Every structure is written in structure tokens, then in C-alpha cells.
């Protein structure tokens, strides 16, 4: 009965769905994401060097105006242009981190899937253990070892990010392995490596992509947090977290200097998070009904 009735549930608004496959106003999200990615690539090129790095004490702490759209910071640098320039450090780093730990996650999941029962058990216990380890504290350790910099933050986050991906992927891979057609192929003597490359990995790609997009949002947030506790990007970097950090002392006199880069982080995090949701709905029709 329930199934009969869902057929008649009210249709949602869908003007643009026919073109993009993405329902209604949600089309805004991928557009924003693409714009952000373009910005991350060309940002440092279009932002004038003088506005981004050069101190100009005379125009310090200026509120937003037609000359400085988002005001200036304590050194008189233009907040707007610094955000543009910092997009690269913030966003491309996040993309690198997530891509990095996704690869580690794929490797670990593959080992667990192909290795048989015992290898799987051991690998999964290691994953559990790694999951119990707070990523920020690990990052602090790596930063302490390598010296605080954006690069050590990136390495630390790659080293702590993989367990969840590994766990999710292993679930998907095991499911694929137990599918009838894969079992058949196995009986027919198709090698495990070939099986992995031809069936299991391609089958995990959608899950991976969904997670990839969602993770970038989270990563940007944590990356900013690392800058904030002093182990990420260092001044005078225009990485957004570092911008907030350097502006925290002047929040009473020039709140815009801390406010604006935080908004930039939030917009990026929200956009990628929503992209993850949209991709999930696209790839998983069962979810569409929810």
C-alpha cells in the first residue's frame, strides 16, 4: 500500500531539472562550486600584490568603502583582495588533502577487501584505532615535528583523514564483491586484480565522489582551525583561517577583518557540503524519495 501511495506524492518544483538533472534552484550550488574552484586557480594572479601583502599603515583598520570593499586590516591590507588571493591556499589545499586521503583510503579498503578474512579484521581494527585518534591533536604532533606551516597541516590532515573513507569504501567493495556477477567472474577465473579494476573500483566511484565533495567542506573548516591554533598557514599568508587568526586581536576595532574571511570559509564549506548532498541524491535514486 505504501508503495502505491508514494507514486501519488506531490511532485516537487522542477524547472531546471530537465536540463541539468539537478532539481530546481539547487543548480546554484554546482555553479558556486565551479566559481570557487576557478577563483582558487586564478585568485593569486588577479589580486594586486600591493593590496594583498604590502603594509600601508596610513589606511589601516579602514571600514568597508568603495575603495576597500571589505575594509582593511591592521596593516592596511585590503581584506577583499586578500580573500581573493587566499582562495588558493584555502581551497586548493583542501582539494589536495581530500584527494590525498581518498587515495590512502582506497588503498586500505582494497587491501582489506582482497586480503581475506584475517587481513580484513586486522586492517579494520587499525582503522577503528585511527578513528579514535583526534585529528587535530595528530596534526599538532605533525606540525611539532615538521614545523608549523601550511604543508605540515596538509600532511597531517592526509594522515588523519583516510580512516573514514577506508571504512565506507570497504563496505561498498564488500557489497560489490558479493554481487552475483562478480562471484560468477571469480568462478570463471578472472584474477582478483582485474576484478578490482574492472568492477569493484568503478562501482565505488560514485560513493567516493559524493564523499570527496562533502569532505572538502569539512576539511576547509579544520584547515582553518589548524591555522587558528598556530600550526597551519603562517602570516603573512592570506589563507582564510590565518586571516581570521591575525584579525582576532583587532576584532573590537575592525570586526570586518575577522568577519569576512570567516564568511568566505563558511560559503565554501556550505557549497561543497551541499554539492555532496546533490551528488548523493543524483547517484542514489533510493534516497531521492526521502
Amino acid at each position, binding site marked *: *500500500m505504501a508503495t502505491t501511495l508514494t507514486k501519488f506524492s506531490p*511532485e516537487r518544483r522542477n524547472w531546471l531539472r530537465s536540463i541539468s538533472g539537478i532539481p530546481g534552484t539547487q543548480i546554484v550550488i554546482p555553479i558556486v562550486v565551479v566559481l570557487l574552484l576557478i577563483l582558487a586557480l586564478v585568485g593569486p594572479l588577479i589580486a594586486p600584490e600591493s593590496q594583498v601583502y604590502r603594509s600601508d599603515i596610513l589606511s589601516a583598520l579602514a571600514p568597508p568603502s568603495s575603495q576597500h570593499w571589505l575594509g582593511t586590516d591592521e596593516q592596511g591590507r585590503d581584506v577583499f583582495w586578500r580573500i581573493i588571493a587566499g582562495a588558493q591556499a584555502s581551497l586548493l589545499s583542501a582539494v589536495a588533502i581530500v584527494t590525498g586521503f581518498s587515495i590512502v583510503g582506497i588503498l586500505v579498503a582494497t587491501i582489506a577487501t582482497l586480503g581475506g578474512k584475517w587481513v580484513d579484521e586486522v586492517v579494520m581494527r587499525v582503522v577503528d584505532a585511527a578513528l579514535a585518534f583526534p585529528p587535530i591533536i595528530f596534526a599538532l604532533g605533525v606540525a611539532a615535528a615538521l614545523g608549523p606551516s601550511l604543508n605540515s597541516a596538509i600532511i597531517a590532515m592526509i594522515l588523519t583523514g583516510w580512516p573514514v573513507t577506508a571504512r565506507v569504501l570497504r563496505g561498498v567493495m564488500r557489497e560489490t564483491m558479493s554481487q552475483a556477477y562478480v562471484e560468477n567472474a571469480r568462478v570463471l577465473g578472472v584474477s582478483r586484480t582485474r576484478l578490482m579494476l574492472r568492477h569493484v573500483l568503478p562501482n565505488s566511484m560514485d560513493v567516493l565522489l559524493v564523499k570527496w565533495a562533502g569532505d572538502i567542506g569539512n576539511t576547509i573548516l579544520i584547515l582553518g582551525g589548524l591555522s587558528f591554533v598556530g600550526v597551519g598557514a603562517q602570516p603573512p599568508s592570506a589563507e582564510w583561517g590565518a586571516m581570521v587568526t591575525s584579525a582576532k586581536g583587532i576584532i573590537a576595532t575592525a570586526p570586518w577583518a575577522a568577519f569576512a574571511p570567516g564568511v568566505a570559509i563558511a560559503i565554501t564549506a556550505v557549497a561543497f557540503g551541499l554539492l555532496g548532498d546533490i551528488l548523493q541524491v543524483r547517484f542514489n535514486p533510493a534516497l531521492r524519495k526521502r
Partner: protein
Amino acid sequence: MNTTLIHSPKQETTVSRPDATTLLSVRNLTIEAGSKNSPLRLVDRFSLDMSPGDRVALVGESGSGKSVTARSIMRLDPDFRLTGSIDFDGQDLLKLSEKQMVGIRGHKIGMVFQDPMGALNPLMTIGDQVMEPLRVAGVDRAEAERRAKSVLEELGVANAAVRMKAYPHEFSGGMRQRVVLAMALISDPSLIIADEPTTALDVRVQEQVLTLMDKVSKERGLAVLLITHDLGTVAGFTDRVAVMYSGRKVDEASVDTLFNNPAHPYTQGLLQAVPRIDQTVPRLLTIAGAPPHPGNRPTGCAFNPRCSQAFDLCREQIPELRPAPEGGMVACHLYPAAGKEQ
């Protein structure tokens, strides 16, 4: 009998008349789903009368609107837009507030569902679930427990006091259906709506549950509206049958008339699909084709593409319900003069 029937083209009619003893009187119930701009008419001007103790079957294929109709009498689907009237016990259910409706559901009208496996809350004990309608009505626990035990025993649940502490997963399908029936009966309703109560059960258990429902409803003088796609279950159980096709009532007659002289070609087809003991060669016929989607009904009679006796008029005009030659009502162009013959 049919002296008060009114034959206005916009008004559907029913066999028995609304009078002082009417328990349930559905008039021109129209059910729409979907958005207001592109509504989907699931049921079109459905009417039905039931007196206290009446046993009526509502028969049709899946998608005919029979379940939707049954659920809408209880107003179970908030997304549906209901028009017309549903008079029950002197009040129009469609005019009641949701809060007043809560007082009707379970307490005045009980309902039994198709799938006993999914019908029970897996986290609550059988006893708590059977008692629940009484508890929300303010009956104290001891009294509710006593009545739950007695109704479960009435329905043949052995060792009821102990079984009430069990959880649904410890019950078989047939037993769960008894529990669902107990939940529907515990508040002493005057009407039970049974929505395909045996479809999900295996054949032997089907028989048991049906016999039990028959016995209990007779003993209690309950009116029963049985929703089913299977005319076979109807024969021994009900007095009257209404047949639905694509959201409309197309045929209504007493069980005898319907089985011996089915008026509507669709009813004739349904009957041929019922296995009969008196036929030496088991012959199961089904009507070719499938019922139309509510958003895509053919013009004219909705049944015309599947009807072997269809003629031009059937493809142009929707037939209204008229008295059938052998008694009852039928909506079919084959009986144009039926009204005059009476």
C-alpha cells in the same frame, strides 16, 4: 426499494438508501492527490451506504482506488484532498477537526491492514499495543490489561496474559493479524474496515483469519467493510459487493446477484478469474491489459480498452450508475434502459 433514488448525472447513487438506521453514508467522495495545479483524481464521486451490522465488500484490482477510499474514510492520508461527505453516526467526518478525527479512529471505526508483519511496532510489547487505544482514551492500566486479555482470548490467542508481554517478532503472521484485529476491536467500534486483511498471509492462515473475522463480527453485530481484490474471499463473508474500477464504483449488487448475474463486463471478467469448485477443468481467466493510471484515463468509460463488448458510446461518454436489470446498480452503456424497466 429504490423509490428514493435520484438520477442526476452529477450524483452517484448506491443500493440502499440513507435512512435513520444508516451507520455510514459516503456521498460523492472525490479524492485528489498531487499539486493543486495538476491534480490526480484517484477516486471520483464514490458513494456507499452501510447499515449497522452490514457486511460489504469493496472489490477491484490494485490501483482501482479501493484502498485509497478505505483509508480516506479514516482520513489517514493528510496529503489527499477529499470532497463530498462521509456521514458516520450522524456527523460528517470530512468536517471534523483532526483532533475530533482521532476520537473516531480506533474508537468508533476500527481498521485492519494488509501486512501484519509491518503493522506492529517492533519495539512495543503486544499487550501495550493492544491496550494503547484504551490508554489514550484514559482507561487505567489494570482495566485496559483485562480488556486486552479478553479480546485476545476472544480472537483465539492462547495463553493471552503471557503472550501480551511478548514482542511482535515472536509472533507468526497469522498471530500478528489477530493482534491487529484485537487492536481494532478493543474499543468496541461499530464498523471495521478491513483492507486486504488476508492477502499477505498464506492460504491456510487466510482461511482461519477470515473465519475468525466472520465469527467475531457476527457475534458483535459489527458492520464490516472488506476491501479485497479477490472475489473468492467475498462469497461467504459479505452480503453486498461494490466493484471499483479506475477510481469509480462501476457495479454494486447483493452477493447472490453479483455472482449469478453479474451486470458489468468488468465484474464478469473478475468472476471468470475466480477458481470455482463446480468447474471440472480449472480455468483461470484474467482480463487482458491493465487498469489505467489515474493521470491517464481513456475518454469515455475507463474500462473500454479492455472491454470485449465496448462500442462507440463507451469511447465517448462516461456511463453513470443506473439500476441494473437483475437488481443493484451498474455503470455501463450496455444497460441504457435499465432504469425504465423497473
